[in-house]
């Protein structure tokens, strides 16, 4: 069982080369690269504009977003790209027979604990990605590809902090 499971993912170095080719293709075609948190920002702006239009007109964050973008926030490169990520991830799961409802965590904790930390981690990553002007994909990976100073800073801050805090959160994972 364990042998089958261990060999089921692609060789990481080959996956890395393919990932690099995706980033090159994005830059060659669109002059920009992959990202995830920007799509979430667009979705939040679109939701607030729909649910509370008066608030969206007055609150600074939404005003600044509208100044920088025209048209529907959801009609954006990153939103289409993230829809593609869902499709691509799903297709990969179909091909490799990995479609299953599952919560992953260390055997030492309950699923409930894992989900609470997943939510907290998501909130932090959401906030951090706004300060960082992009997440691991949009700021670190894409930024490093074009040798952006900010991309390297993001990468070092993200991985450095995660390493520094790993011991404190070890029970979640090992």
């Amino acid at each position, binding site marked *: 069982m364990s042998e089958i499971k261990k060999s089921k993912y692609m060789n990481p170095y080959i996956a890395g080369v393919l990932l690099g080719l995706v980033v090159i293709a994005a830059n*060659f075609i669109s002059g920009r690269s992959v990202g995830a948190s920007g799509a979430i920002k667009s979705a939040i702006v679109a939701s607030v504009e729909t649910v509370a239009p008066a608030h969206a007109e007055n609150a600074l964050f939404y005003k600044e977003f509208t100044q920088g973008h025209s048209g529907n926030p959801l009609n954006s490169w990153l939103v289409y*790209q993230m829809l593609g990520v869902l499709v691509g*991830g799903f297709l990969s799961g179909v091909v490799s027979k990995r479609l299953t409802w599952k919560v*992953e965590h260390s055997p030492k904790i309950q699923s409930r604990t894992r989900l609470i930390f997943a939510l907290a981690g998501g909130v932090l990553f*959401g906030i*951090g990605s*706004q*300060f960082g002007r992009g997440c691991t994909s949009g700021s670190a990976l894409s930024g490093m590809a074009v040798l952006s100073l900010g991309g390297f800073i*993001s990468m070092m801050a993200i991985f450095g902090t995660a390493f520094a805090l790993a011991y404190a959160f070890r029970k979640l994972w090992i």
Partner: protein
Amino acid sequence: MGPLVVNEIISENTNLLLAFFIGIAFGFVLEQGGFSSSRKLAGVFYGYDAVVLKVFFTGAITAMLGLLFLSLFGWIDLGLVYVNETFIWSAIIGGVIMGAGFIMGGYCPGTSFCGAAIGKIDAMIFIVGLFLGVFIFAEGYPLWEGLYKAGFMGSPRISEFFNISEGLFALFVVIAAVLMFWGAEWAEKKFPREEY
């Protein structure tokens, strides 16, 4: 020749359609690499599974070298490619918050969509958190607008910052990556890994 959309070789609508296909490739590769599994992702911070480090840095150096070569061949004008703006304080603080989110949540935004796509419930909850987090940032924006915009440095390339050529800097990154790969292979042998 490239970037195609900036040079108006393809239209804006075609660009958006291609974004969807680029996303499919991105999601497919992430999932195939194992990025849909939070325990695999978190493994790099404990040494038992360094897939994140291997895929991420192989991807970064492949893209970096590929773009430098395309530029050398004259196939892409890197001056027209988007380079992230650097706001030094916001970048560091954002990265630190994201790092904490990574070790607690086990995902980053892109990988959480991948995990959710194949049914990982922890990934779906993480995405709920992402939306909450961005909403909190948006609503509290006046409080941290000053910090968000402090230390603006333009859109510098790191090679300009260190005043060395792009190729030489790329070489340093490749050397650093190879050393990390070596360390990663060593750590995976040293630290036991359970099945998940």
